[in-house]
C-alpha cells in the first residue's frame, strides 16, 4: 500500500534553466482542459519543498548550474527528476556552446528523459506516468 501512495498524487515543480519557453508552454498545455493532468492528481506547486517531481527544461546556462543543484537539494525525498525537451537531454542546438554547462544529467541525476523540441503534451504525460513507476520502485527498495 505504501508503494502506491505516490502514484496518484504527484506535485510537480518546474525549473527553467535557460529554456526558450517552448517546453514550458507545452507543460502548461498539459494542464489545460484538453489534457488535464490534474485528473491524475498532478499539480504544479510553487516551491521545491512541496515537490515530488522536478520538471527541468533548458540546456542549463552557466548562471543556472548552482541554482539547479540548490533546488535539487531543497526537494524532499523521494523525488524524481524529469528532463523535458532536447535542450535538457543533450543541450540540443546549444551543443558545445561556451556558456552552457548542461545537459541536465551532468549536474543532477535525471530519471526520465522526454524528447522533442518541444515535446508534445502527450509525451510529457507519458513521462509523468514513468515517474510514478520509478517512484514506486524507489519505495519498494
Amino acid at each position, binding site marked *: 500500500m*505504501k508503494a502506491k501512495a505516490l502514484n496518484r498524487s504527484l506535485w510537480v515543480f518546474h525549473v527553467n534553466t535557460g529554456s526558450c519557453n517552448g517546453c514550458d508552454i507545452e507543460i502548461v498545455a498539459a494542464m489545460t482542459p484538453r489534457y488535464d493532468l*490534474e485528473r491524475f492528481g498532478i499539480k504544479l506547486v510553487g516551491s521545491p519543498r512541496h515537490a*515530488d517531481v522536478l520538471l527541468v527544461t533548458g540546456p542549463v546556462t552557466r548562471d543556472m548550474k548552482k541554482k539547479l543543484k540548490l533546488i535539487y537539494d531543497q526537494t*524532499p*525525498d*523521494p523525488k524524481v527528476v524529469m528532463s523535458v525537451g532536447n535542450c535538457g537531454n543533450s543541450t540540443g542546438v546549444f551543443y558545445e556552446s561556451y556558456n552552457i554547462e548542461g545537459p541536465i544529467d551532468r549536474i543532477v541525476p535525471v530519471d526520465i528523459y522526454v524528447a522533442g523540441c518541444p515535446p508534445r503534451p502527450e509525451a510529457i504525460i507519458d513521462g509523468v506516468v514513468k515517474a510514478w513507476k520509478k517512484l514506486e520502485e524507489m519505495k519498494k527498495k
Partner: protein
Amino acid sequence: MTLTTVLLMSVPLALLCLLLGLIYKGIDRRLGARMQARTGPPVMQPLRDIRKLMLKENIVPKHAVPWLFSLMPVVALGSTLALLMYVPLFGQAPLLGSYGDMVSVLYMLLIPSLTLVIGGFVSSSPYAVVGAQREMVTMISYEFPLAITIVAFAWLASVAAPGSAAFAFSTFSAVPVWSMTSILGSCGLIILFAVMIVVTSGEMGAVPFDAAEAETEIAGGLLSEYSGRNLALFYMASAVKMVVLGSVIIALFLPFGISGYAGLEGMAAQAADAGFFLLKLFAVIFAASTFPRVAVPRLRITQIVKMYWVYATAAAIIGLTLIGIDVLVEAI
C-alpha cells in the same frame, strides 16, 4: 454536558470533521475543474495528498528556529480541532457551548492564521516572510467587517430575545435571526450575509484573497519552506477550518432544520438535520471558496485591504444601520 461525554464525543467528532473537511476540499477541487471544462481530480484526492505528504521527507531549513518551525503546524491543527467544540455542528448544540460564545470563536479563529504567520517568520525564507506579512495584513483587514456583523447580531438578540445570552450561538439556533426582524432588518441581514461570505473567503485563504500563499509570485508564501508531515498538518488544519467557518455562517444565518417540515421525530429527525447540515455546508463552501476561485483572479494585497476596509466595511455598516433602524422602529 458532563466532562465524560465531552471527552468521549470530542475525538470522534474531530476525526469526522477532519475527514469531512478533506472530502469537501476534494469536492471543491473537482467542481472547480468542472467549471473550467476539465475532468478534475477524484473527490478523494486530498486524502491521497495527505497520505503522500506523510511519506515524504520532513525538512527543517538550516536557518529556521527548529522548535517553533515544527510546533506551529501542530498548534494550527490543534486549535482548529478545538474550535470544533465551540461551534454548532450537524444541527446539534456545540459540545462546549456553555463555555464559549461567538466572541471566543472570533478570537480563536485568529490562532490558525497566527500559527501560519509565525511559521512563515521563523522559516528563514524571504518568500515566507513576505507571505507572513501579507497574511497579517489580510487578517487585520477582515476582522473589522466581521466584528461589525457580530455586533449587529448581539444587538438584535439583546432586543428581540431579552434575557438570553446575546453572543451565544444557542440564541440564534433557538430563534432564527430572520424571524427577529421585519423587512428593513431583513435587507440589512442579507447585506451582512454577503459580507460574511466575503469575510469567510478571506479567512479560508480562498483564491481572490490568497495573496499570502500566492504560488506563482512568492513560491507558496507562508508555506514555501514547509514539506512532508508539517505541510500535511497545515493542509488538514485548513480543511478543518473550512468546516468551522462554514458552520459559523450556518449557525448565524441558516440555523434551519428540515425535520420539522418532514414531520420526523427522534433519531430520524436528527439524522435528517445532520444531512441537511452537510448540504448547507456544501452551499456555503461553494459560495465562499469554489465559485470565487474559478470566477475571480487573485487580488493584490492593496486591493484586498481596500476590499475589506472600504467596501465590505461600508456594506456591513449599512447593514448594521438598517438593522438598527428596524430595531428602533419595532421598539416604538
